[in-house]
């Protein structure tokens, strides 16, 4: 097929390849209709990305891809963990923007009478929206420990969160090598102000019910056993802390491009060799931001549990509010992968893509109208996509157009009539996140299943949501 003037060759049921335009081939893990729905810039940006130096084998584009800054949202590539290059823009501003799924032993029937109260209480307990401050006040030293030691420090020293959550977080909620001294004062200030906040835009906290279980035997291993079971899903990242780190290092990387005579088509894709001290500093700072995000999501989970306790008058443990998994979708990770040259340590860049090792939980969040999925990582992802899969349903419409298409207040009323109660800090923010602004999540999940990257486990229907 031809798209955006590029010839894509079909290599599988949900797999196309673009060759000859870049240093490495670009694999699109999507069905034809999803590729046709991608905006043209996805392809130009994918080619720019695939011309970065030092890439291993291929660039992978996920079925929910849409154009971003530099690299498309929904891009994965890898470089040698020692001799390769690192690109802050190809990891993203919101370092470790990610997803968290929490199970309960409640059913929809049980929660319905309390739904509005719970949503309102969540809105009261979890700061959302522009300029909102976090409820968790920590000192600089405590922040240093949080971003260097991760969730373990939060739980053991600050007494927030559950110890049993730690093993259910990617990298146990602590990426090794994080270094607070690599983080600017400005990033620290933004982090101190925003620790324990949800944010705005497409970040959200959602109450969902199990609508369909695709594999009951496997779902039971994660505490999911019946239709109508209540779950909670959280989508947020490293807030201003991560954004500032990315901004700071983009600027510094750009200043050093000439030293290595690196040419990039888009300055958002600036990169440096990992042997450079600045690149090492960025890796350390990025790891700190990733840990900040893990800590942030655990802190918010603490508040979620408190909100449920307050409204329902039962302990969160008695409500079975266990963490299923917490996983990043904007990150640079050092991982071992099989390549054509054998097993190798690689630095995998995932921007709008989720880690998907076989048997690992994957969380793909949809819009507040359409629902979300839990999946399991697939075997094929190991050799096709550096163990990666999609992360969401992907925007298809600009924010401005979405706002012109519907009023936020009308959308809230419409959703309430459908039984979805939403509390939002901004009407225009709600309009921007309308379901029609996103791809059909079922098609995205179908594509990753066909490509062998991950298999659907559970489909979740939203019933309540708070957003900024």
């Amino acid at each position: 097929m031809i798209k955006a003037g590029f010839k894509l060759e079909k290599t599988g049921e949900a797999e196309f390849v673009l060759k000859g335009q870049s240093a490495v081939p670009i694999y699109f893990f999507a069905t034809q209709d999803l590729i046709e729905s991608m905006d043209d810039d996805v392809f130009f940006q994918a080619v720019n990305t695939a011309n970065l130096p030092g890439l291993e084998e291929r660039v992978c584009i996920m079925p929910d891809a849409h154009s971003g800054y530099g690299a498309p949202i929904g891009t994965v590539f890898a470089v040698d963990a020692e001799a390769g290059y690192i690109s802050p823009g190809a990891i993203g501003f919101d370092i470790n923007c990610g997803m968290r799924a929490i199970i309960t032993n409640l059913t929809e029937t049980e929660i319905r009478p309390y739904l509005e109260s719970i949503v309102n209480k969540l809105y009261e307990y979890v700061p959302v929206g522009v300029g909102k401050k976090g409820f968790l006040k920590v000192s600089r030293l405590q922040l240093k420990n949080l971003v260097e030691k991760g969730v373990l420090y939060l739980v053991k020293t600050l007494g927030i969160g559950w110890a049993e959550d730690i093993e259910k977080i990617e990298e146990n909620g602590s990426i090794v090598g994080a270094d607070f001294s690599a983080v600017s004062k400005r990033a620290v200030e933004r982090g101190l102000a925003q620790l324990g906040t949800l944010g705005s835009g497409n970040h959200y906290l959602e109450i969902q019910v199990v609508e369909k279980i695709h594999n009951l035997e496997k779902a039971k291993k994660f505490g999911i056993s019946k239709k109508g079971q209540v779950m909670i899903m959280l989508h947020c990242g490293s807030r201003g802390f991560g954004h500032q780190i990315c901004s700071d290092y983009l600027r510094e990387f750009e200043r050093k491009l000439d030293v290595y005579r690196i040419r990039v088509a888009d300055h958002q894709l600036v990169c440096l060799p990992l042997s450079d001290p600045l690149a090492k500093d960025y890796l350390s700072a990025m790891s700190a931001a990733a840990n900040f995000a893990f800590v942030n999501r655990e802190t918010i989970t603490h508040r979620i549990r408190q909100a449920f306790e307050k409204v329902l008058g039962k302990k969160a443990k008695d409500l079975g509010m266990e963490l299923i998994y917490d996983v990043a979708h904007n990150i640079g990770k050092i991982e071992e992968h099989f390549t054509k040259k054998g097993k190798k340590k690689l630095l995998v860049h995932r921007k709008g893509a989720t880690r998907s090792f076989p048997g690992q939980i994957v969380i793909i969040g949809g819009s507040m109208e359409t629902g979300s999925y839990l999946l399991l990582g697939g075997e094929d992802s190991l050799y096709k996509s550096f163990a990666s899969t999609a992360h969401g349903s992907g925007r298809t419409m600009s924010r401005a157009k979405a706002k012109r298409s519907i009023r936020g207040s009308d959308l809230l009323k419409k959703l309430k009539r459908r039984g979805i109660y939403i509390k939002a800090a901004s009407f225009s923010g709600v309009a921007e996140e309308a379901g029609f602004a996103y791809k059909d999540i079922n098609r995205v999940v179908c594509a990753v299943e066909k490509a062998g990257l991950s298999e659907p486990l559970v489909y979740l229907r939203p019933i309540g949501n708070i957003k900024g």
Partner: protein
Amino acid sequence: MADVEILENTAIADVSIRVKAEGIEDLVEGIVLAFAKALGVNEKRLCLSRRIKFDFDDEKDLIIKIFDELIFFKDVYSEIFLRVKSLKINKSRVEILLKGLPVGQVGDLGADIKALSYHNLAIKKKNDLYEVVLTFDV
């Protein structure tokens, strides 16, 4: 007075703004107005002031540093600065008195501006006329 408009043909998830200005003072005012426009804020009653001053290498550095300050005040002090009250600028140093208001006094804010992206960042200058395209991560 700088001309500031939101651009439609942009990457799907972001906000892009074009600023046209005559002279560097006008450019600075336009950059601050661009922040307001990107946030969707059009408040007239501005009760807060802050003075910022810094050195800069060139126009790009100037723009990046102004946004750094504006985003910082929004996130750390919950203050949004939308207008330039006064300005002193030479080739490498700027001092700006900003006017703004607390976040809590703004109506419906919509998407948050979290960072200035380098994607499509373009600064054109002809004689004293500037045309700048900015893309924000929201």
